């Protein structure tokens, strides 16, 4: 006998996240008030900064591009019951692939650079996730632990490479040589002056393609069916003749490859060189993006936009309200992550009872009998 009935789909995917967001904004507003600023002003500045003018909107879309990739990476793994916390490290090492393609192909054409950079970044990012996948599948080491540890290994590896191997002779900064020619991906501002100086580039179309491909993968392919079976019930998947160990490795590789796309965007699209710590937290925010987006591409697109707007609007807020420091922005972002990600179930029981009360008064014609 189930007492609680699930929410209607629209409430689950739209109403609940909106209420969570609202709650996060109310508490953020309280924090802003505590330091003597007007929260409504702050909200207006954030909104205007993120959506109000071309360049700001361009930045929002640029940040959202990164969040789409890492959100999808987390979501794909989640569908197979795997919690990939290593998107950060996977994106980081994928930078090697992106910069090597960018530097060697700098004298050719971006139409060549882009596909090769995608392949190289996906391969390295995927490989970086495959190792934890292998350890989980064959050795039973939990991916949550190993992917976290692989973030640190990635970080150490990249410091070594950037200070010893990739740094041009005679340069002080721990960065690679810069790409100057075809290695730099086309910027949207070159075609649409609307975007001002925003670093929004061609990679956003890769992100849109990735959203569609992941949707098809999860819900329209045999592989996706197997992944969802594994994610819901590993016993049933081995009953169904699915090789759980092989599937774990395949899924982690796909997940890592998606995270690797951040490298294409950041390294070849924005910075034109490989820098220390270029993923700067996009991988971790991807967890919140996937959680808030319910692991569905449409949800991920929307929550990636939200976090993109928070990033960009937060930067604006720092400029326009000097009392609000960078740390305050981090607090606000953290509150949104907390309420939409970590505590997304907070309002669920209340909302469910509210719907049940409403539903009981309605003479609903649902045919369902009591579940056994």
């Amino acid at each position, binding site marked *: *006998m189930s007492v609680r009935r699930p929410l209607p789909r629209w409430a689950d995917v739209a109403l609940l996240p909106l209420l969570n967001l609202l709650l996060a904004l109310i508490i953020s507003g309280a924090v802003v008030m505590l330091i003597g600023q007007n929260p409504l002003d702050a909200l207006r500045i954030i909104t205007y900064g993120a959506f109000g003018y071309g360049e700001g909107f361009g930045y929002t879309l640029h940040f959202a591009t990164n969040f789409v990739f890492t959100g999808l990476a987390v979501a794909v793994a989640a569908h197979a019951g795997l919690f990939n916390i290593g998107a950060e490290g996977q994106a980081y090492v994928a930078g090697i692939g992106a910069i090597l393609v960018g530097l060697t192909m700098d004298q050719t054409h971006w139409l060549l650079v882009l596909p090769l950079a995608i392949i190289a970044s996906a391969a390295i990012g995927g490989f970086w996730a495959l190792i934890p996948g292998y350890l989980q599948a064959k050795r039973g080491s939990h991916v949550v632990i190993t992917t976290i540890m692989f973030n640190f290994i990635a970080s150490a590896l990249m410091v070594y490479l950037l200070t010893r191997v990739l740094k041009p002779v005679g340069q002080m900064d721990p960065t690679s040589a810069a790409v100057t020619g075809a290695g730099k991906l086309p910027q949207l501002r070159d075609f649409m002056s609307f975007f001002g100086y925003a670093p929004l580039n061609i990679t956003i179309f890769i992100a849109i393609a990735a959203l569609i491909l992941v949707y098809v993968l999860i819900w*329209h*392919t*045999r592989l996706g069916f197997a992944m969802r079976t594994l994610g819901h019930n590993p016993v049933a998947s081995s*009953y169904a003749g699915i090789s759980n160990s092989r599937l774990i490795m395949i899924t982690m590789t796909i997940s890592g490859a998606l995270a690797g796309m951040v490298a294409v965007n950041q390294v070849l699209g924005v910075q034109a060189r490989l820098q220390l710590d270029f993923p700067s937290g996009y991988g971790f925010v991807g967890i919140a993006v996937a959680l808030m987006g319910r692991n569905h591409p449409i949800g991920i697109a929307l929550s990636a936009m939200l976090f993109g707007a928070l990033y960009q609007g937060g930067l604006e807020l720092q400029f326009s309200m000097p009392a609000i420091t960078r740390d305050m922005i981090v607090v606000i972002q953290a509150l949104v992550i907390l309420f939409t990600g970590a505590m997304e179930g907070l309002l669920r029981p209340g909302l469910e009872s509210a719907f049940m009360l409403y539903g009981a008064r309605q003479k609903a014609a649902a045919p369902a009998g009591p579940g056994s």
Partner: protein
Amino acid sequence: MTPWAIELIGINKRFGEVHANKDIDLKVKRGTIHGIVGENGAGKSTLMSILYGFYTADSGQILVNGTPHAITDSRHALQLGIGMVHQHFTLVDNFSILENVVLGVEHSPLLAPTFAKARAELKRLASEYSLDVDPGAIVEDVSVGLQQRVEILKALYRGAEVLILDEPTGVLTPAEADHLFRVLRVLREQGKTIILITHKLREIMAITDSVSVMRQGEMVATLETAGTSPEELAELMVGRRVLLRVEKGPANPGKVLLEVVDLVVTDDLKVPRVKGINFKVRAGEIVGIAGVAGNGQSELLEAVSGIRDQKSGDVVLNGSKLSLEGDDGAARARLAGLAHVPEDRQRMGLVINFEEWENSILGYQDDPAYGKGVLLDIDAARRQAAERMEKFDIRPTNVRLKTANFSGGNQQKIVLAREMERDPLVLVVGQPTRGVDIGAVEFIHNQIIKMRDAGKAILLVSVELDEIRSLSDRILVMFDGKIVGEADPATATEGELGLMMAGIGTKEAAP
């Protein structure tokens, strides 16, 4: 003082639009065993949960010993002397029996005085009700039957005068069930009142004094057990005539389709559970494997169907040896023509969160019938699922409905439809009617016999001896990982089979 220990008057409970209890009246006489029967979803558990304080009734009255009470939670119910033994035990596995008994009712900050008191109390309960336990034993080390005894002791220790038992024999061996019934009789003699929820009519007939039948949230009858029959109860539960006995013609065995040779299987802890088994199943016959749960049947099923790796031995299907190694062995077994209805549909046979049509292709997701290449032809799968729904009378008829929202019987039909409609050579079936309503049992049994008559080889494993006896053409008895005997269902008595199941049989197995 009234003779009624419990009186429920006009109880109503709704969950959303589901009316789980409609105007229920129930009176339970003190010092009797009162049975409550009904199909899954009839509202038995809801009613008992209201009595035990898990739910609050929307309307109605509860009288305990003639005094009305509004029972707010289970602690309150316990204070009123109502205790419950759940179907799924609520014990801490790595605690000792003593620790479990006092859990939540420790009356002193230091545990020593509590333990001393509990030890004395347990000794008294043991002598009074023949409920012997070793208080120091760790719960996970003792048998399921003993764990249940701990649950009963917990309730008695808390001063229960009325004991509610929810499907208490589902997990017990026949011998353990017999012992439980002896204990219940002793409890009755000592003046305790027992409410027994079950779907096994035989138990109702064997032990209760009176019985209430629920159907679709309503109390349809309360009868004296002595004046009724299983047939009458089944009819009341389902609302129509039910055939309790399976009707089938004689078997017509053909060539050997499934042969198991010297099979040895270990469990996850590398403990051998199947210890060298040989048997054959021919086309057109049902071979039933009888045995008390936990004697290697589950491991046998999982090894034959390729889910669990075998340690040694062969599984031969239609003359060719199956290669089942690796964690995708089940896929190869299926390709070779072996269909498997697993013992536990919710844990293994279904993904409970999937829509119905998704479960109707589970295991066959790589089949060309569901599309070319990497893409899944969802329309084809849904069309086929809808056809099967009609053929197997799966309700509600909505292939997009989440599988968890189907009743147990309909879930089992989803699995059966999937495995039978593939037209396999060999069908391996575990516990085909566990937790299934009486109405659906009849249907499922008929489907299995239809498969047999179509010339399939069927291996049936069930812990319900009645089911094995009525469906099988040959019975193999399994004990401690070995086949200890073969019996002819037409002549073997329950006593003979019971002895073999307990490992005391003498007949040698004929392969």
